[in-house]
């Protein structure tokens, strides 16, 4: 009996440790959580980047986001991976290697794309990379690969 209780306590402890360590890991989300993430918040600018480990132009532009994040500490940077959910470990280690863990990291696990792409933005065809800017004033979607300086310019305009 005692053994069992100890075991349970141990498992709970392990889970907790994992939770704490995993705080800045890529979290798997579904559409309702995505909808919450893209909602405007008072006084806040959110930069929400849609990417995937298989998308070359996405990977090319990621350093600009990491750089911009250092410069604009008050801006919230959110990275949403479109990789398949069974690739979560690969996505997680890749994202950390790229320094995305300074922002929020998620993987959207819903392959019925047509049911939610328009919720992110009617201006989005579904091609990636794509980035959504959300502020009190509204939302704007850019379906493009950012090059040096472009991202910072948009952020400055929206602040």
């Amino acid at each position, binding site marked *: 009996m005692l053994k069992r209780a100890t075991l349970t306590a141990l498992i709970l402890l392990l889970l907790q440790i994992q939770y704490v360590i995993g705080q800045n890991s890529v979290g798997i989300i579904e559409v309702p959580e995505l909808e919450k993430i893209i909602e405007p918040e008072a006084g806040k600018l959110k930069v929400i980047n849609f990417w995937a480990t298989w998308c070359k132009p996405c990977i090319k532009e990621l350093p600009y986001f990491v750089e911009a994040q250092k410069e604009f500490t008050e801006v919230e940077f959110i990275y949403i991976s479109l990789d398949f959910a069974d690739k979560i470990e690969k996505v997680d280690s890749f994202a950390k290697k790229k320094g995305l863990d300074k922002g929020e990291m998620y993987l959207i696990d819903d392959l019925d*794309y047509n049911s939610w792409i328009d919720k992110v933005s009617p201006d989005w065809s*579904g*091609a990636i990379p794509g980035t959504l800017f959300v502020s009190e004033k509204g939302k704007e979607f850019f379906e493009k690969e950012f090059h040096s300086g472009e991202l910072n310019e948009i952020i400055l305009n929206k602040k």
Partner: protein
Amino acid sequence: MKNVLMIFLSIVFLFAFTADKKGYTIGDTARDFSLKNVNGEMISLEDFEDAKGYIVIFTCNTCPYSVLYEDRIIELQKEYAKKNFPVIAINPNDDKKSPGDSFDEMKVRAKEKMFNFPYVYDETQEVTKDYGATNTPHVYVLDADRTVKYIGAIDNNTKSAEDADKKYVEDAVNALLAGEEVPVEKTKAIGCTIKWAF
């Protein structure tokens, strides 16, 4: 003078706006083309005599989401070519931006996968621009008169054909073959951007 200027500005604005929203929408008549197939032949829609329609798919070698759909594109051709509703796959990517999508690489991929459909190269990207394709894979289902009847994804599960419970292209083609309205005319899907030449 002020009025003339206003009219002029309106026209400029109108053009700027139209240019931004280019590409076909449902009901438009799609253009024909003459593009080089991997076997060296030039392919046009008008070559398909007695065609009841066309499944035009913008796809490429290098996009993982296109690759995931290759077997399904082969299946579409198997099913519908015999019903005079052929698949024509168009690679829209600039080969300087994406060397893996060069004409030579297309030939390699077509042979490896034994493509049973024409796989043509839109070298100038003009056809892609006129259609308004934005990503790969991106499908346009046309009827016999080249009227655009469906634009979008092949189905609603990129990862696995078995798990897709909405087969948009099949549903559209079946409806057209039966003389019925296409149930879902437009969908969106995650895909790769088209690699435009500068």
